[in-house]
């Protein structure tokens, strides 16, 4: 299949893995963080750890929007959904995320009007088709999905659609990376930069990471070869004592980002003074809210939202896993109380969450000797 097969070619992958082994100093341990949950998922799905030398450790970053959403936000969103004649629309990723009183899917089973949509414009379509109901789109995501929410709101405003609103949970990636770097227990050698976020924001916003923190960062695609090539680029920088921003994902990511998308975001959103991230706590200027001009479409203003704060279950160590301090399997609940079927923490819900990815693709194979991993 075009645009896929060439990035999964075993021969090229073999050569790239060889290059990684050649570049990696055997006397050194490398801790590289893949910021994006999509990368985490790809790393497990393609079994890339089996291809990497053992001294290259991949640390899973905070780039899974479902995972970093505090439980209280879900409860607030569902509280709106419980009001009469309200339809709750969200991406499929949100559906099994547990709130304090159950997930959106569990609310649907109890009779609430909960819909999966594949884009915010689908939610707007729902509103147009059901004028007697109010459709609230529960928006999540980094800069990847924020522009489509922005465009949808611009359309709703232009057309005067009154029975539509957005419960905005959009967050921005840079403050999260800063919080990770400021964390005292964090020792990282470099970053695999998020691919899809960068299609919107471009590569410039990462320059301080290289310049001020001295960490190389390579914006990467999501195919096995993309990720391996990004690791090659990181290792080369480290070997040469450089720390710069490089773009491996040039086929998709323009250096300056997507100006039209950024303009739409600027039109609709401004920064919240602070926002709570699951596992990372309150981070200032890390999330988006609707500008006053869009107040009639802001679910948090249209409905009275309680602003519930729910502490995570005590035993769950989502924060430590999210920051890369603990591996998923080191959490006390992993695979016991917390499984993809009955997730306690959000990292176990989203397929991009490191716990779910690890549980689904890795954990029962941990004890295997390597020789049986190759086809007979």
């Amino acid at each position, binding site marked *: 299949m075009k645009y896929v097969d060439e990035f999964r070619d075993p021969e090229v992958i073999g050569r790239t893995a060889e290059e990684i082994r050649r570049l990696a100093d055997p006397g050194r341990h490398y801790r590289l963080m893949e910021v994006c949950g999509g990368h985490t998922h790809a790393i497990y799905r393609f079994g890339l750890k089996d*291809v990497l030398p053992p001294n290259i450790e991949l640390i899973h970053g905070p780039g899974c929007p479902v995972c970093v959403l505090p439980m209280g936000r879900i409860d607030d969103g569902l509280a709106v959904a419980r009001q009469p004649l309200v339809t709750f629309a969200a991406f499929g990723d949100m559906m099994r995320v547990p709130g304090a009183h159950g997930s959106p899917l569990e609310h649907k089973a109890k009779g609430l009007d909960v819909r999966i949509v594949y884009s915010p414009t689908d939610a707007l379509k729902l509103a147009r088709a059901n004028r007697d109901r109010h459709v609230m789109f529960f928006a999540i995501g980094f800069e990847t999905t924020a522009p489509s929410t922005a465009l949808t709101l611009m359309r709703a405003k232009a057309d005067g659609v009154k029975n539509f609103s957005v419960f905005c949970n959009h967050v921005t990636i840079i403050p999260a990376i800063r919080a990770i770097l400021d964390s005292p227990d964090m020792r990282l050698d470099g970053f695999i930069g998020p691919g899809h976020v960068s299609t919107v924001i471009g590569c410039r916003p990462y320059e301080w990471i290289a310049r001020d923190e001295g960490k190389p960062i390579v914006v990467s695609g999501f195919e096995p070869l993309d990720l391996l090539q990004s690791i090659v680029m990181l290792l080369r920088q480290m070997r040469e004592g450089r720390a710069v921003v490089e773009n491996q994902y040039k086929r998709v990511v323009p250096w300056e980002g997507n100006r039209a998308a950024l303009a739409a975001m600027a039109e609709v959103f401004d920064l919240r003074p602070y926002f709570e991230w699951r596992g990372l706590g309150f981070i200032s200027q890390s999330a988006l809210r609707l500008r006053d001009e869009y107040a009639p479409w802001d679910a948090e203003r249209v409905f009275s939202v309680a602003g519930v704060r729910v502490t995570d279950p005590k035993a769950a160590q989502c924060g430590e896993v999210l920051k890369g301090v603990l591996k998923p399997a080191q959490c006390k609940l992993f695979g016991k109380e917390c499984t993809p079927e009955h997730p306690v923490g959000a990292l176990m819900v989203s397929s991009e969450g490191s716990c779910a990815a690890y*549980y*689904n693709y890795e954990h029962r194979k941990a004890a295997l000797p390597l020789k049986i991993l190759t086809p007979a």
Partner: protein
Amino acid sequence: MAHGAGGKATRRLVDGLFVPLLYDAQIGSEPDRLSDAARVAVGHSDVAITTDSFVVTPLVFPGGSIGELAVNGTINDLAVSGSRPVALVTTFVLEAGLPTETLAAEVRAMGRAARAAGVAIVGGDTKVVEHGKTDRLYITTTGIGQPLPGVSLSARSVRPGDKVLLSGPIGDHGITILLARGELDLEAELVSDTRSVFPLVEALVAAVAPGLRWMRDPTRGGVATSLNELALDSGVGIHLFEEAIPVRDEVRGACELLGLDPLHIANEGQFLAVVAPDQADAALAALRAVPGGEGAGAVLVGEVREEPAAAVLVTTRYGGSRIVDMLVGDPLPRIC
């Protein structure tokens, strides 16, 4: 909804509620109680019996409709339990106001599918419920079959070294249904694979009956769920070779876009078989020789090993590997 999705929750429902409360070892003589059909002794002979309900939406989709699915689905459950499908009875649950022509079209589709498979539909029942209490039309079919001589299938007979065969490309049905709902602005030239697999099963049995260990049609939950059930029931590890698993580009493309794994997508006209190592070549030759080319896509996709115990492992061409679990939750509800 997950309890009906064919994955982990379904299995828990069956193991935790239905089996303890309903299973009677005195009557059911099937040693592998969780196969696709049960065996019951009637007089001096054994009869295979199974039932299945169909609630798919939309009712009609490229390559088939609920009526065909209802016939082929039950035929396939009998076939992969090693039986020749003989007769079906059927129940219709209709929503008041269902257009007569919709029902007539589905009844015709059932007749066509049954005749094509040489199976009689010998009885039925109809219930109508108030408008809004059901979604247009649900069909249940119950089938009986005659166990094929010389066949003994059981997850427990599967041994390390055995080979895993697959009858053809996977994911066609699930992705066809998903696209037919029109909720995604995606289109593809793809049709459901709904068909009777009995001709293939019959050929396989004729060629390698003593070496045939286990069969299953991977419907809801897909190949991953069927093989996980085998791994759990037998304790062995199933190794799949990713590059050997046939997946059409349309299915792969849709799965890549939507973040789904083709191994979790439903099929309605394929089956998996585990055969003794020395029988794999003969089995594939027999499947591929079935008249009409229905088994032309049959391939060896994996093998049974001791490790990882009770799990399914997929290896990639470049040496990576991943565990593939049963389906959790339900990416595409009401697909059959």
